């Protein structure tokens, strides 16, 4: 489903991503773990089209990310951002923001679909007419997920989806994500610095450090502590 080969991203002198490769099968949940500055968020942003300066090859559901238009990419892969307090436009209602991607892409019955999406994420139809500042962090993140799903993408990229949330809210959001993945047959790529969250959510994961791949592991290997690299061990010990 996702093929990243020899991805390198350089920003004015410094290398954010250094020759990274990985593959994600359809329906799989793949984790990118690393500390700040490891390059994991940059990989996500590049995959989804927010960053257009990169070398290498990125294949998304058979499409070449370099030559595909944003509109076509948008119907296949979408992203949920880290900060729930910054991912919703302050001046528009929740309903308007969930419906907007549908309006842009000419999808029929945006209102009906909005109600459906709100239902799917566990918020009632009344939320259509609320403004973001009336919502809690967890509720905002749910809305962000609904918005990302409005174009029925097959792949969802999640950049630290629960880092800014309280632990009890994190549990709700992680449960929601797992449920949605099962119901809609989605493929996930999740970025986090929290090894416990990645281990819970992902079957396979890749450890990154300083823009480079350190190691790729399966959940079983992690649980069995079958970890080769010293840095990965350090991360494991600190979790």
């Amino acid at each position: 489903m996702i093929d990243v080969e020899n991805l390198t991203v350089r920003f004015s002198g410094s290398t954010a991503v250094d020759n990274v490769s990985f593959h994600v099968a359809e329906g799989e949940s793949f984790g990118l773990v690393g500390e700040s500055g490891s390059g994991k968020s940059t990989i996500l942003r590049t995959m989804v089209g927010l960053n257009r300066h990169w070398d290498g090859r990125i294949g998304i559901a058979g499409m070449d990310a370099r030559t595909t238009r944003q509109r076509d990419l948008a119907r296949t892969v979408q992203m949920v951002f880290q900060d729930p307090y910054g991912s919703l436009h302050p001046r528009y209602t929740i309903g308007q923001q969930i419906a907007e991607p549908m309006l842009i892409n000419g999808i029929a019955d945006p209102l009906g679909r909005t109600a459906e999406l709100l239902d799917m994420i566990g918020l009632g139809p009344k939320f259509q007419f609320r403004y973001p500042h009336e919502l809690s962090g967890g509720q905002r993140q749910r809305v962000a997920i609904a918005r990302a799903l409005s174009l029925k993408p097959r792949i969802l990229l999640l950049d630290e989806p629960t880092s800014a949330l309280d632990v009890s809210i994190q549990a709700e959001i992680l449960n929601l994500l797992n449920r949605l993945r099962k119901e809609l047959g989605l493929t996930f790529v999740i970025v986090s610095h929290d090894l416990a969250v990645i281990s819970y959510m992902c079957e396979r994961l890749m450890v990154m450090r300083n823009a480079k791949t350190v190691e790729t592991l399966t959940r079983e290997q992690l649980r069995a502590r079958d970890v080769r690299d010293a840095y990965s061990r350090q991360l494991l010990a600190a979790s």
Partner: protein
Amino acid sequence: MTLLNTPAADPKAALRAARWKEFRNFARRFFRNPLGVVGLFIVVLLVVVAAFAPWLATHDPYLPTLSARLAPPSAEWWFGADELGRDIYSRLVHGSRLTLLIVGLVIVTSAPLGLIIGAVAGTRGGWLDAVFMRITDVFLAIPKLLLALAFVAALGPGIVNAALAITLTAWPPYARLARAEALVVRNSDYVNAVRLAGASEFRIIVFHVIPMCLSSVIVRMTFDMAGIILTAAGLGFIGLGAQPPLPEWGAMISTGRKFIFDQWWVATVPGIAIFTVSLGFNLLGDALRDLLDPHLRQRK
């Protein structure tokens, strides 16, 4: 499972209700600021006086009564009479229309122009940004009154020309302001999310960036109004703005200059009017800024 599907029945009304609730919250917070309320009152008073000028005036503002030349304030001439025996109060009241006209003309042209230029420059970046900002710099470098003088000297004096001249120097600050906001907003997650959905640059600028620039622009507008009134009065004072017999406040001060020591009311009354209206706009602007500027928010 949707239990209460009522909002879907009339989404437009529900949206209006949500917007109205936001506005009510805003109004409630505004009215907690006493100085802001004073400013608002003054501005509303100006508008009301301008709207009902013919009914509020006691005399014809253009009709000279030579027997009452330079009459002091009395029961008949509320603020006294000028050197041609015209009632100063009535001229003041009619002059408010000119004040409002000039302020309105300038704001309505300069603010949107500056906003669009700044928002586009800030969102697009690159050479477009550079070109727009250099043009802005050029106009910013020219002193307001000087450009207005040159303009009016070339095109001839008059209210509309004066307003046009002031507009030319009034738009750059809005461009700067809008660009600063746009630079921040264009990288925010909510704009990125909409980019991911395939939104065009046009859509992003018009529907996502510009709404976020509005707060600073509105605050700036209220402060600017005070400045515009003063500049227009300045032009009128020199004789390049409104021409006689128009009762423009600045022109009134100019003619009243000669009598300042013995018949102080001729120059002082319009001066107090200009001062009050400027103060009103400034107080209003201060209150709005306290409410709208996210950096000044007191609560978390």
